[in-house]
Each structure stands twice: as C-alpha cells, then as structure tokens.
C-alpha cells in the first residue's frame, strides 16, 4: 500500500536541461562560489566579514538539509506546492497536506534546520542592511552591490522552496528585528 502511495505521487525532481537533478546543495555551492567572487570586489571589511558569515551558515545549512531529508524533503515540498495550486481542493488534499507537514517535521525532530535557517536569515538581513548603507563610488561598485543583494534574494527564494523560510523560529522579516 505504501509503495502504491509512492507510485502515484508526481515526479517532481528538478532537472536542468542536461538532466542533472538540481538540489539545494548544488545551489549553495554556486551561491558560495559567486559570493566569494563578489567579496573580492568589496572594499569594506565589515561587509566582507558579513559575506563570510552568510557563506559559512549557508554551507552548514545545506549539509544539515542533506542529513535531514534532502531530496525526500524537496519532493514533499513540491507535492505541497502542487496541492496548494489545485483548483478543486478536496478533503483528501487537506489531509495529505497535514500528513506532509508531519513527515517534514519528523525529518527534523530537534529543530536543527529551523535554528540554522533562522540564524542564516538574520545574517542575510544584516548583510542586506550593510550593503544598502554603502555609498557606491563608481558604476561598478553599484553593480557589485546590486549583484550581492540579488544573490541574497535568489538564495532566500531557494530556502523558501526548501521550506526553510516558513519554519516556526526562522522569521526573515526585518520588521521588529532592530
């Protein structure tokens, strides 16, 4: 019965044009690599330090993500999104959503992912504030600052897709942070 249940689930693995499955681990690796390049274009030490903090926390979160579900978690998150997009939502869908949440929570019983993502969100917010406070001198400086902010936006979007931005203790809201 369980096998049957797995069989009817839609295939949700995210594959790129070459057929490679894209995971949070791959995204984190590329994010980390780019942030390292962008760091070299920044003169301010405090911003460089904050970039390093974000990179380190993102790498750690990606590892924890692998340990606490990884691909299975991605599949469940995708199924959750698909269910929410259904036009004719029936009781069985509601029950399945509750079941998915239970399964996801069971993958991280000690709330390690919640704590790590909350810490990362807070560091991202600090880095955003620091970059916004910079006064760019050249058009290149302006571009580098924009690229950093865009990278943070895209990484946050990946965290949302991984279900790491709606964890109980991981608020990304800047309101009330200071």
């Amino acid at each position, binding site marked *: 019965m369980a096998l049957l249940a797995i069989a009817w689930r839609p295939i949700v693995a*995210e*594959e*790129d044009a070459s057929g490679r499955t*894209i*995971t*949070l681990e*791959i*995204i984190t690796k*590329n*994010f980390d*690599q*780019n942030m390292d*390049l*962008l760091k070299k*274009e920044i003169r301010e030490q405090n911003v460089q330090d904050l970039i390093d903090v974000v990179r380190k926390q993102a790498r750690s979160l990606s590892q924890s993500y692998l340990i606490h579900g990884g691909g299975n978690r*991605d599949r469940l998150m995708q199924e959750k999104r698909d269910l929410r997009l259904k*036009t004719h939502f029936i009781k069985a869908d509601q029950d399945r959503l509750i079941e998915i949440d239970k399964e996801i929570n069971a993958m991280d019983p000690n709330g390690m992912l919640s704590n790590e993502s909350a810490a990362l969100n807070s560091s991202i917010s600090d880095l955003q504030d620091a970059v916004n406070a910079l006064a760019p001198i050249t058009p*290149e400086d302006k*571009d*580098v600052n*924009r*690229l950093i902010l*865009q*990278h943070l*936006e*895209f*990484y946050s*979007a*990946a965290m949302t*897709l991984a279900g790491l931005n709606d964890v109980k203790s991981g608020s990304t809201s800047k309101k009330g942070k200071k």
Partner: protein
Amino acid sequence: MRVRCRLHLCVLFFCCPVLVFSQNDTGNVATSTTSAASNSDLITKRIEEYKKLEATATQRIAEIDKMLSPSKDLIAKRFGVSPEEYHFLKLQAENADAAKAYFKNLRDEMKKSYVTINDYFAGANAAILKNNLWYGNEENLVDEDVSFLGKLEDEITQHLDSLPNGAEMKALLAEKQQLLDKLAHPDEIVLYQLTRKDWFANRPDYMQAMQEGRSMPSAPEKNKP
C-alpha cells in the same frame, strides 16, 4: 358609429408601414431605417478604408526599408552596430515599458524553481568572471539603450544630411514615420470594431458584475459556463 370609426383608425395605424422622420446634422429629413443602414455602411466603409491603408502602408514601408537598407548597412558599419542590432534596439525602444517589465517578471519567475535559481547563479558566475557586472540589471539598462539609440539616430540624420541624396533619403524616412504613426493610431470606432467588438459576450460574469456594479470577479467555479 364612433366606435367603428375608431376601430378603422386602429387598423389603419397598425397595418400601414411606419415611417418615423428624423432630421440629420445637415438638416435633411431621413427615415430611421435608412439612417441605420447608412450608419452601418459608413462603419463598413471606414473599416475597409483602414484595412486598405494598412495593406498599402505596410507595402510602402517595406519598399522604403529596401531603398534605405544599403545606406543603413553603411551607417551600421560607421557606428559599429550591425543592422540586426540596430533593428533590435529600435524594437526595444518602441516597447521600452514592456522590455523593462519583461526582465523584472523573468527574474521573479526564475525564483520559483531550483533549476532557474541555479541558472541565475550559473549565468552570474560567467558574467562576473568576464567582468560583465551589469548582469541582472537588464531592466534598468533599457533606458540607457533607448538613450543610446536616440544619439545614434541623431548622428544618422546628420550623416544623411551630408550625403548627395540625403534630402531624398530623409524624406523617405519621414514618409515611413508618418505611415507608422497612421497605423499606430487608427480611428477609435475602427479599432473597436476590429478588436473588441462583442468580446464581453463570452464573459457572463463580467456582464453580471457590471449589472451589479461589482469590481471583484466571482469565484472560479462560478465563472465556468
């Protein structure tokens, strides 16, 4: 007797063809049936005229483009912009708002899946290594492109002035612009007839909403026919 006469008058009234007289703008008297028919003819005539203009203008624009193309190639070489690039810059300038919205929407869409998020990072990596730091700023660069094209076109005009047949070429360009303007701004009635006529017939919810003065659509299920 009086009753009978009245009956005869009623029969006369209902059996005779009714001619309702009305005066038009010029003060001439016309029947309503004739007037409705002539209005319909007038609209058909205006639509036909526009379609004819569209066909002839499109043909004339193609002719002008053909006549100007060799010099355009020359100018392109002079300014380091290929004819295709020049054409694209013009197209982008004509649709600047759509171009800006396109890149913003594209980025928003890219945030919706791991694959496209990864595509953004991969593209950014290649761009940063090549020092193309404008990557991801496309929507803001549209304005710069439009301004660049304006400068380019000013220089093209100056260059045309210096050519022996420059005046003739400039006249052709002006003619083309005039035709484009005409095509871009058709008569409102013609535009309505050609595009939106009866479009709401398939939107029962919208018609209902208008009757109720409601601004919110009904739930999707309710919308289904």
